[in-house]
Each structure stands twice: as structure tokens, then as C-alpha cells.
């Protein structure tokens, strides 16, 4: 995809990498979600240890032209703690499954973070002034002796070092029996939905003690269970529309105006299965791991194990575009089943202009597809290519026959290095790629 000018050709360059270099990766440090906010100024990551780290982009200044808008740590806080459900004798993991930002409405920033069972609304605010000169207490907070107070004074605001505080403003709990896999803020900025394996709930951001159940696919007899909900998202512009994907590779679009319980879909998206490619694992690889609307709201993208598909909301019987992510893995499905890799849930994302899409793969590779030119590129997130502003070299996987120089054979791929979470800046060509416990940020050279 290298090239000069011409619309959508990107030249991706290394910008930054965050995280420990140590080979021994602590489980708690593994990044489990990445999300830019609406302006792209803030980048949030959640990890398996229940922590949220927020990076803020430096203002580009003439003094430091080389920094080019680098992301630095803005705030770190513990969002979720491990819990224990005493009734079921189950431990509830503190791993952050999803973070979603709310649009900024005042000086503070708000985000929703969710683990398996609980969603929390966090307020992240800056404090750069402090009141000094209280009447009743000292500077360190101790109460002053009453007989020493002889005059009345007005406290004065004095500047202080910038402090970023995160405080939980709402806790939305006890609404999900199964594991939460998605949250999505509605375009009305008042409600949001949360989805678990069998149910989707609609919440109001101000109300924590109840939610509306809008989808329930739990069968009366659990032994008849055939599919689960794998992802859900609100439409970016129509606040009454949302979609949810299933483990059977289908997507349902629902309109909340039609009924209180949206068990009956308005649209049903499914591509007929190719019978010649059936195997023991056909059902697993057709399970959709992520669904994302385009920014325009006209298209949506789904990710299953081997491919990414772009659907036109007006056409239900097949996707308009299909991109193979790592088709060379189709012959390895049995091994991937044994080592559990076949259950990996890859996410996908759109570029700000919807002209390109990106998703992750193994060996710290990630793939980018240009929808206009139909060109695709494989890039690698590794410390070896981490010289500042070094341009990323395209990678290639050798699928058979003679391996050329610089190609890597399928059997040499490291399946422990998986890129499940990626994010694209909403306005610029800046991408964030989570590789296990490291966060890589790449920028387009032309940018």
C-alpha cells in the first residue's frame, strides 16, 4: 500500500510502544480492550487485571515538532476488582472486556468499562487548582483550635500540579446472568446497551437500579441452546436501531420502535455456507467475534475466525465485501482447536473515513484492507521495528512451496502472539494495536 498521493495509500510508521519489555508477561498486564475517544485525543486501554490506562495526545507545538502528537499516560486507575459470587461459587474475573467513551459534554471525560458482570461509568477530570485558606481547618486538613480563629477569611484558589482523578459515578450491576461481551453507547447519549451470551439490556446512564431487557434468546430448556449472542452495537445515527451477532454467523438488526422485546429481528443477515468447506470446525470458525458499524451508518463489518465481511445494511443475503485474514490457517484448524486458538475473538475496526478496515492475526501480525483499491497489507507489531518513525515493512506468510526471503512459513508463526484488539483514530490515520501486554501506536507518514 505504499505510494504517493492517490487517496488511500498508507505508509505506516512506528510511533510509540507502551508496556513492559520483559519477556515474562504477567497475566494481569495483558491488554483486553483498546478504544479512542470521540476526538481521538484520548486513548484508553483495559487489561486483565481490571485496570484502565488512559493516554492523552500531546498538543503538537512548534517547540517540539518531532513529537508529532505523542500519547502519554494521562490517568491510571483500578476499574474492577475480582469478585466472588457466593450463590454460584464462581469467581468473577476483573478483566475489562470493553471500554466505551461517552461524547464529551463538559471539561470532564466519561467512559464506560465492563467486566463479565458489572458496568461502571467513570468520570475522569482534571484538577489544577486548590483552595487554600480555609477557616476551620489547616492546610493539611486538621481542624484548627477554635480559640485560635480570630478572623474570617475567604479561601483562595491557588494553582497546583495537574492531577487527573478518576471516580466511579455509576455502577450498573446485577443485570447479567451470563458474561458481558459488548457495551455500546447510543447516539442519543442518554442510553446504552450491554449484551451477554443470551440477553441484551438497555440502560439509562442516570439510572442504575434497573434496565430494560430488549433481547432474550435463552430457550425455555437450556439443553436446546444452539446459539449465543457474541457482539452487539448501536447504530451510529439511528438511536432506535441496533445489531447483534451470533455464534452461528448471523447478524440481526432490530428496531426498538417495533416492540419492547426485540426478539423478532427487522433484518437478518446471513451468508449461505459453502458446503465444500465443511469440517468438524465449520461452526466454530463461522462464529462472529465482532460487529462494527461504519461511521457512515450505511455498512457494518463482521469478523469471524478467518475473514472479515462488510455488509450493506440494505442487503441481507450476503456481504458486499469479504476479506480473507489468514486463510492459510484453514488447514490447521484441528491443531488450533487443540491449543484453543480457534476460540480467539478478534476485533475489527474502520478507518475514520470508512475507506479502510483493520483486524489482527497471529505472530503479532495485523492486516489492513483498503476497500477502494482492494489492496491489503500485513504488518507486524514488534520491538524490532521500533525505531522512531521507522516505516513498517509489509510482511508475508508463505503458504506452501518455496519460501522466499523475508517470508515466514505458516508453521513458524507464533500463536501465542495474537493481536485481538486494535483501534483507529476517528479522524486521523493513527492506529493503536494491542500486542499481548504492549500497546503499539503507528502513524501514517503522510499524515
Amino acid at each position: 500500500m505504499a505510494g504517493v498521493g492517490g487517496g488511500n495509500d498508507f505508509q505506516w510508521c512506528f510511533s510509540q510502544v507502551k508496556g513492559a519489555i520483559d519477556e515474562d508477561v504477567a497475566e494481569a498486564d495483558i491488554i483486553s480492550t483498546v478504544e479512542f475517544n470521540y476526538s481521538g485525543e484520548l486513548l484508553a486501554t483495559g487489561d486483565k487485571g481490571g485496570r484502565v490506562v488512559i493516554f492523552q495526545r500531546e498538543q503538537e507545538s512548534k517547540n517540539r515538532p518531532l513529537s508529532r502528537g505523542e500519547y502519554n499516560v494521562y490517568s491510571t486507575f483500578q476499574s474492577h476488582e475480582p469478585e466472588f459470587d457466593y450463590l454460584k461459587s464462581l469467581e468473577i474475573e476483573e478483566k475489562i472486556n470493553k471500554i466505551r467513551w461517552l461524547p464529551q459534554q463538559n471539561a470532564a471525560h466519561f467512559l464506560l468499562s465492563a467486566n463479565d458482570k458489572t458496568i461502571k461509568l467513570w468520570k475522569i477530570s482534571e484538577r489544577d487548582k486548590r483552595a487554600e485558606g480555609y477557616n476551620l481547618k489547616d492546610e493539611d486538613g486538621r481542624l484548627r483550635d477554635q480559640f485560635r480563629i480570630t478572623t474570617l477569611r475567604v479561601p483562595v484558589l491557588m494553582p497546583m500540579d495537574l492531577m487527573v482523578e478518576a471516580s466511579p459515578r455509576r455502577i450498573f450491576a446485577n443485570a447479567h446472568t451470563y458474561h458481558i461481551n459488548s457495551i455500546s453507547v447510543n447516539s442519543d447519549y442518554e442510553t446504552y446497551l450491554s449484551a451477554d451470551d443470551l440477553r441484551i439490556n438497555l440502560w439509562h446512564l442516570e439510572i442504575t437500579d434497573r434496565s430494560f431487557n430488549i433481547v432474550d434468546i435463552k430457550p425455555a430448556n437450556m439443553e436446546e441452546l444452539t446459539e449465543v449472542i457474541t457482539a452487539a452495537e448501536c447504530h451510529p445515527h439511528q438511536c432506535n436501531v441496533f445489531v447483534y451477532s451470533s455464534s452461528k454467523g448471523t447478524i440481526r438488526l432490530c428496531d426498538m420502535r417495533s416492540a419492547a422485546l426485540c426478539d423478532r429481528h427487522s433484518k437478518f443477515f446471513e451468508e449461505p455456507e459453502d458446503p465444500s468447506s465443511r469440517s468438524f470446525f465449520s461452526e466454530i470458525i463461522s462464529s462472529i467475534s465482532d460487529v462494527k458499524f461504519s461511521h457512515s451508518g450505511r455498512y457494518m463489518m463482521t469478523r469471524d475466525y478467518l475473514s472479515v465481511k462488510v455488509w450493506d445494511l440494505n442487503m441481507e443475503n450476503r456481504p458486499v465485501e469479504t476479506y480473507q485474514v489468514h486463510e492459510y490457517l484453514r488447514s490447521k484448524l484441528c491443531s488450533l482447536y487443540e491449543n484453543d486458538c480457534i476460540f480467539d475473538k478478534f476485533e475489527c475496526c474502520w478507518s475514520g473515513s470508512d475507506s479502510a478496515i483493520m483486524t489482527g492475526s497471529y505472530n503479532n501480525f495485523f492486516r489492513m484492507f483498503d476497500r477502494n483499491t482492494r489492496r491489503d497489507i500485513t504488518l507486524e507489531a514488534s520491538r524490532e521495528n521500533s525505531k522512531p518513525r521507522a516505516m513498517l515493512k509489509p510482511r508475508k506468510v508463505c503458504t506452501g512451496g518455496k519460501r522466499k526471503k523475508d517470508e515466514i512459513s505458516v508453521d513458524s508463526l507464533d500463536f501465542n502472539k495474537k493481536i485481538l484488539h486494535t483501534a483507529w483514530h476517528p479522524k486521523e490515520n493513527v492506529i493503536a494495536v494491542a500486542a499481548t501486554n504492549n500497546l503499539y501506536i503507528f502513524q501514517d507518514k503522510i499524515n
Partner: protein
Amino acid sequence: MEYKVEAHRIMSISLGKIYNSRVQRGGIKLHKNLLVSLVLRSARQVYLSDYYSGACLNAAQSEREGNEWDITDSEREKFPPSTTECDRIESSEEPQQNERPEKEREYRENDDEVKSDQADCTSTLQQEQKQNSSLDSVAKVSSETPPETIDEPKESPSVSTVAESDSSPEADGESHQPPKTHVCSNRKRSAEKTESGDLPQKRTKVASSNAKEDEEAEEMDTSNVSNLITIFGSSFSGLLSKDGAKPESEAEDSGQICCDQMLKNLNPWSTAIVAF
């Protein structure tokens, strides 16, 4: 016969996964367990349907495992043109060409109308014959509603076991044509597979040792349902003890544990789901 061994292996791996999921942090993951149970069911159906050694099954099987086994074009030509029909859910009245291993009720329909492959797989033939004869009775049990997936794997080794105890008169009643080259193609494919990497090599090694163990397990005598559980247990322990290389020892260990688990709890998967 490799596909049967493969199916058996996948079944034991799947059971191991279901068992391990119960002790995983964060509780049972419904989605993953659902997918594992679907694989388990597919593998079980393939395992039980091995007497569909006619062209249709091999074609269907090879298509199902097509990418696992690197079918060449010449081999594909040997398969009858109706192979795609084999994968459709609807069962057919025509037994030979259109047998669908996915549907349990077909076991009953297709008893007497099986084509088997060339005689150099005589042991296979004998096993298939014996399994045919007993499959009818077992099919009635196993053709219960799909939810009872855990019961069925128990019965799968028992099918072969019960089959073995049946004497040859029933086998004589079957009509079997000499096997075609399809089974040989299976073997060819497995040889090709060995060349293509470490994991496939491991698989073939396991396959050969497992095949022996299967036969040894099947020699055990059973006659009633209470012994089916024992047979299932011993067939797993057979895998553990006789497999010198133990490439799949972890899966088998968990299979063993899982099998013990199943002994205590007849329907662990349903119980696990219902526990939600």
C-alpha cells in the same frame, strides 16, 4: 479408518475441554462450551457412522476434512458426484449414495445397504460389519433428542464393544461389496499429511497407536448398560497405558478425568448449562 480415529481423538479433546472449563477462573464460558459441544457432536456422529464406508461417506468425510487432508484433484474425482448432498441435513431414502452421517435416524435406515471398501482393510470390514448389526439397537438409543450429547459419546465405544460380542451370523446377513480405493486414499492422504509438518506427524503416530488400542478395547466383553460406562472408562485408560509416545497425554488425561467425571454425573454438559 483414520477418520474414525481422528473423530475419537477430537471427542476426547472436546470432553477434556468441557471438563477443564469447569475449573477455569471466571466460571463456565457458555459460548466456548457450546462450540465445543457442537464439535463433540460432529465427531461423535462421524465416529458412529463409520460403517458408511461407501463412497458417499468418504466423499463427505473427505470434504469435511478436505483441508485437513490435502485432497488432490485425482482423488476427488473418485468420489461420486452426489457428494455435496451428503452434507445436507435432510436424510434420504436412497441409502448408498446419500447417507448423511449427521442424522442419527439414518443409522436405522442404512443398516443393510452399506458399501464397504477394498478388502485390504479386512479388519475394518469386520468391525464395520459387526457395528452395522448392532447399530440398529444402539441407534434407537442414540437417536434420542440431540440434547443428550453426553450420553452418546459414552455409547460410541460401546457400539464397537457390543458389536464385537455379536457373533458372525449377523455379519453374514450383511451384504458388503469389496471396498473401493477410498480407504486407500485415506491412507495415502495420511501419508501425505505426515510429510507436511510436526503436528500432522504426531497425529498419524497417535492414529496408528490408537487404532490398535481401539481394537483392543473392543475385544472386551459387555452385555448390559451398566458395563458401558466401564468400557468407556477403560477405552480411555487404554489410550493412556498403551500409547507409548503419549503425544496426546494431556488430552487423554483430561479425557480420563472427564470420563470419571462422567461416570459420576451422567449428563455433565446439560447439568453445566442448566446450572446457569
